[in-house]
């Protein structure tokens, strides 16, 4: 392993500053003298004095470079954030860049040692956090969490965030990624169709079975999934495993415990998917279709349920007629002895932001993120993107869309909000679930084969000492 910090002195200086910030000695003269010293060694230096209003010591007229992902959330909120930063730090020129392929565009800049100050690490291909943290190339954002929040200096940033943000961004025990958008996942359906047919949303497997047979008689598939993008079906099965086996079952999986995928919860979840496939409840040919085709099948009334995130309505806006009313339902009970109660919802922060250590202005980078977490900017994000930010109460009182209100309502009523970690930590394991779950839903495999294939991948990951292991709790 080559875990080499940039240079010993560099590390010490940072550690000192970070600890100082953490203990709240921000305004102490000694520290500001230190911060002032720091400005002299160009790389990664800060030039301003650290105060309560300027917790990272952003220097006057320091240029800032921010790179955003140009995807489903669009460009507008980024432009708003940049304008806000430039207004607050007068004279600081912000260079705003957009990319559709973050990894391709920014990998060379990490390697070359001149990364941007803030990077929106999102897209189909992201910079993998593991190798970059190994090389000491990301700023530990603990200082940001402990800094005073933008709106109220008495409240720390940490306390303005919804639950799960710190955990989701943590690697090797420290938070390196700030996930900004909060997505709620579940089974989406067309409420209008259900009303017309007099159907109700199932709460148990029996109710679902009855509904599925009724729908089949009308030529409607009860279920569909985004076939060629296996990320979706891997979420369905993991969510169902959690539903049946509770947090305990998921922790075994996250922590790569021996035979974690041989648990009964995994067996039940896999059997349910196999049952749907064998009884013809899944849209025919779904495993070869893409996400828009299958999502459109639900909108067109050809399928009843599809698992997706709260971005679904925005994604399908162009082909969504006004007569269709998308709503979300939590997973129904899969057995009579599910450990997680009915109503349990899967929700997780996403859309990561990172600050590279070798950036020219990491202090400005962290300040930029602190401002994004302010009330006004978070609210604007909700308005512009029709998605929830991770800031508590940011979208309160906003009527954004019926689908998002439905998602928020389900999340608010949830007895438990769930998430898991293995997928982000261990790519080969996630890939194995991708392949095996798709085969299962396509009716080409059996629950036992699913369990065996995934367990094999989990064992290989567990014994591969080149994959850095994480601990979930």
């Amino acid at each position, binding site marked *: 392993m080559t875990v080499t910090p940039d240079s010993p002195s560099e590390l010490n200086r940072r550690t000192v500053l970070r600890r100082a910030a953490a203990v709240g000695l921000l305004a102490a003269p000694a520290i500001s003298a230190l911060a002032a010293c720091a400005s002299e060694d160009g790389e990664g230096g800060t030039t301003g004095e650290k105060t309560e209003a300027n917790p990272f010591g952003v220097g006057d007229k320091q240029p800032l470079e921010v790179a955003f992902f140009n995807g489903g959330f669009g460009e507008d909120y980024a432009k708003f954030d940049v304008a806000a930063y430039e207004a607050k730090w007068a004279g600081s020129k912000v260079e705003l860049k957009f990319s559709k392929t973050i990894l391709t565009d920014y990998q060379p800049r990490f390697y070359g040692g001149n990364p941007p100050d803030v990077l929106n690490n999102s897209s189909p291909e992201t910079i993998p956090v593991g190798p970059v943290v190994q090389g000491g190339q990301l700023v530990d954002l603990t200082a940001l969490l402990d800094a005073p929040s933008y709106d109220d200096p008495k409240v720390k940033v940490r306390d303005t965030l919804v639950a799960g943000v710190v955990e989701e961004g943590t690697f090797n025990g420290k938070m390196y990624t700030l996930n900004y958008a909060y997505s709620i996942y579940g089974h989406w359906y067309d409420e209008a169709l259900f009303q017309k047919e007099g159907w109700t949303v199932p709460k148990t497997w029996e109710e679902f079975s009855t509904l599925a047979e009724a729908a089949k008689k009308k030529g409607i598939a009860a279920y569909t999934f985004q076939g060629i993008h296996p990320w979706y079906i891997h979420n369905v099965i993991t969510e169902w495993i959690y539903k049946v086996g509770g947090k305990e079952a998921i922790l075994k999986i996250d922590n790569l415990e021996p035979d974690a995928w041989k648990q009964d919860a995994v067996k039940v979840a896999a059997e349910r998917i196999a049952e749907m496939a064998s009884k013809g409840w899944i849209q025919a040919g779904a495993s070869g279709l893409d996400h828009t085709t299958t999502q459109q099948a639900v909108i067109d009334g050809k399928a009843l349920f599809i698992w997706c995130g709260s971005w679904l309505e925005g994604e399908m806006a162009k082909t969504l007629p006004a007569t269709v009313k998308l709503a979300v339902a939590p997973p129904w009970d899969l057995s009579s002895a599910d450990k997680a109660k009915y109503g349990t919802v899967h929700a997780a922060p996403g859309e990561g932001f990172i600050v590279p250590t070798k950036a020219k202005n990491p202090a400005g980078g962290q300040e930029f993120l602190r401002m994004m977490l302010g009330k006004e900017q978070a609210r604007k994000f909700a308005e512009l993107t029709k998605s929830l930010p991770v800031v508590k109460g940011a979208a309160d009182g906003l009527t954004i869309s019926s689908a998002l209100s439905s998602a928020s309502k389900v999340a608010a009523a949830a007895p438990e909000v769930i998430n898991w970690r293995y997928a982000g930590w261990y790519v080969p394991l996630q890939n194995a679930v991708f392949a095996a779950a798709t*085969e299962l839903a396509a009716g080409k495999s059996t629950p036992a084969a699913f369990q065996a294939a995934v367990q094999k991948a989990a064992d290989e990951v567990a014994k591969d000492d080149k994959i850095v292991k994480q601990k979930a709790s």
Partner: protein
Amino acid sequence: MSFGRARFITGFLFAPILLYAVYVLYPYAQTAYYSVTDFSGFSPDYAYVGFGNYVELFADDVFLRALGHNVVVLTVYPVVTILLALFFAFMLNVGGRGDKAGVRGVRGSSVYKFIFFFPQVLSIAIVAVIWRRVFQSNDGGMINSLLMKLGLVEKDKPLLFLAESDSVFPPIHLGDFTFEAPVVLVCLILIAIWGGVGFYLILFSAAMQSIPKDIFEAATLDGATRVQTFFRVTLPLLREHVSVAWVYLGIAALDFYALVVGMTPGPGGGGPNDASQVMSSYMMSNAFRPSRFDSFAFACAMGVSIAILTLLFAAAQMRLTRSRDKLEF
């Protein structure tokens, strides 16, 4: 005089050689170097690890499967493409009825040439979009809807095509090595043939046109049939062109990256369940969807292996088909 000429030539060659060195040779050398390190692709700090990456590579299930898929492509794609291209080229140039006008192609041959060459001008992205529609796995797919109308396929059991991982023949196991031809791979080969025939048709046409007509006329006068003319006259005279085509197609078969990534399921293509994974697509998914901190170096080892296999193939091919006696006409 000769000194001036050398300077003149050097002057012209300097820029291309410099570009070649910077953008081709240097990256090759770099890749080879990284393949014996634990380079992550992100940090400039890395260590030499010897040939460990190569040892792991040839014990990697998916890589061996991908290699097997490349072998399938390599055996089918060049042969079928060359045979079709030769046949069409022959028909278009000398396959027409022999009459007073002498040797000529079938009627409407220029139209056919245009049609056959057309796929060549489409970018691979467009080819992928078109063929995804053709192979779509529900009643919206061209082939499926046709078969459903004919009553050959049930509406709730469409053919999966690109999402079908079953092999068209029972998989053959040779130790760790599995030899199989999943349906998805066969679909990709069909698309590649569709796209490739036009180019080689033009190549062979040009070669045939450079053969003096009197040779064909002499063959006709001696009473040779079209089949005889093809095998006794045309093919031997095209030997070198066929050999070149074989090398090109072989290299394309060992690559096959764009079709796999553009058309098959899964992140970065290669699905379902690695049924269409080829060496190059697996290399890319290792380089850019890493889990181990050194997977970039691992991917470099794959790149070097692919390059060596390709060079060996080309060398063997050249040796096998080297023309013994060159014909002048």
